[in-house]
């Protein structure tokens, strides 16, 4: 990865955190959604006790939310402790996009998570990325809540 990209991603995260703080009061939290990012625990599995396996995204977005970053820091800590374990980051999109674009979007989301894990000291050669686009939803519903669960990056043990 080149420097401009690192800067760009860093910039996105920074901007996102500003935006999130700015509208934390306005952003509607309805049930298990904040904005349209899933905040519930349905479908979430655990890599180890207290280490959730997935992070969720807003529609068309790759930005990590505060909660996602917390989850990824837990994953990073767990990965540092278990240095023999490698992971696959599986990136997914919801069904409301064209198949090919969603494959690219899933890849982008998984890399967004990968970049964050790397900034917390996890070597890139322990992480591989696999995009499923919209091919493997966890929730087969055709509604905003189901779609929010499907927009995700899941860390899966590779060995």
């Amino acid at each position, binding site marked *: 990865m080149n420097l401009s990209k690192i800067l760009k991603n860093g910039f996105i995260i920074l901007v996102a955190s500003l935006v999130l703080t700015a509208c934390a009061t306005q952003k509607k939290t309805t049930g298990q959604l904040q904005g349209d990012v899933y905040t519930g625990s349905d479908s979430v599995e655990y890599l180890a006790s207290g280490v959730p396996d997935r992070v969720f995204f807003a529609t068309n977005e790759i930005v990590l939310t505060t909660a996602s970053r917390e989850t990824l820091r837990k994953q990073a800590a767990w990965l540092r402790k278990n240095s023999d374990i490698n992971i696959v980051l599986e990136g997914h999109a919801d069904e*409301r*996009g*064209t*198949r*090919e674009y969603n*494959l*690219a979007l899933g890849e982008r989301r998984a890399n967004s998570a990968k970049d964050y894990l790397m900034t917390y000291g996890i070597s890139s050669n322990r992480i591989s*990325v696999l995009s499923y686009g919209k*091919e493997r939803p966890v929730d*087969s519903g055709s509604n905003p809540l189901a779609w929010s669960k499907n927009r995700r990056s899941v860390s899966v043990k590779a060995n």
Partner: protein
Amino acid sequence: MILRYLIILLILLPIKAFALIEVDITRGNLNPLPVAVSPLSIDEKSKNSFNKILKKKNIGVEIAVIVENNLKQSGLFNPLNKDAFLQKPDIANLKPRFEDWNLIKAQALITGKVTFVDEKLRVEFRLWDVLAGKEMMALAFTTVPSNWRRVGHIITDKVYERLTGENGYFDTRIIYVSEKGPKTNRIKKLAIMDQDGFNNKYLTLGNELVLTPRFSPTNQMVTYLSYFKNLPRVYLLDIETGLQEVVGDFPGMTFAPRFSPDGKKIIMSFAQDGNSDIYTMDLENRIVERITNHPSIDTSPSFSPDGKYITFNSDRSGYQQIYVMNNNGKNVKRISFGNGLYGTPVWSPRGDLIAFTKLHKGKFYIGVMRTDGTGERLLTENFYQEAPSWSPNGRVLIFYRETKTNAKGEGFSAKLWSIDLTGYNEKMVETENDASDPSWSSLLSN
């Protein structure tokens, strides 16, 4: 494959008749032309021979039914009920009594004859202008009996060409993804069928996820995305031999493949470090060329029929939009400016239009626009539909549509649909199982 066995001996009989009937194809199916398709006449000996080989009692009737269905499906013709026909097939083929056909309001009449000659199927057929009382066309050809369905398609193509002035699209096939199982874990297989849904065959077993097959415009090759060994890569498959290979040696996911119009290159996206760009690979010398270099998602590329330009979708503006560039990646211009997101651009084989998918206010549309982005026309709206593919004459689009599930997440289905360029004649294309990602072949015979 089949093409190899198809020995077409076209005997062009003199066409003297001045074409009086003509189908106006610019207005869609408002006034489909009434046409009588007489069963093709057949002698007893030939009938028995074909029955033995093909298990069809009367191949003459069967071929006429194929022609009739094709014409009906096009939306431009209205095949008349056979029960009203007064003349017997053999006599009609020699010299129709035009008053009889006029009486049932047929404007065009198709007659013909099938014979079994030297283990082959020989067919001759004629197209008659009923009002003018003249023969418009007469053709004959010979093929292996197993090609009998294609005989019906070729007859339709010739009739369609004569009456509309455009190339036909009936002797063609569709490659698509056959789907089964729960929405959360679909089993997907490559499948191929004739344009009318017959002769369906599965090309993969369903062990790995497969997506977006596309025909080569020049031969029996297909390019598609397979998750073989959990490595999503673009593959090249020879449907004649079943041999397949990975396209290129990329260290990450390659996807969204399509052939160049000469069939010599594959254009596709390659994703790495969260960025997807467009590449081509020359199938002869294996040289890989990078076409776009932009931190946005660039995907769904499609060449213009002359190979000089490429259309693709990119989110470089912040949202998914359609762009056109030179085939070397220079001179990138955004062409979609309407409200909403635009994706999956495909260049018409005629060169004048780009078909696309549009998402606006929670609805999906299939539409067309001119190659400079003007003249946007939406043909159909639905909960979810995408990925149009052109018939080889640029007249019809085939795409797939998915249904909305209910509150329990039940009721999902994916089906192929076709629609005329005019927006008329929207039809579901029957498939054995659920289906998606259709790609239309070129004409198998010319």
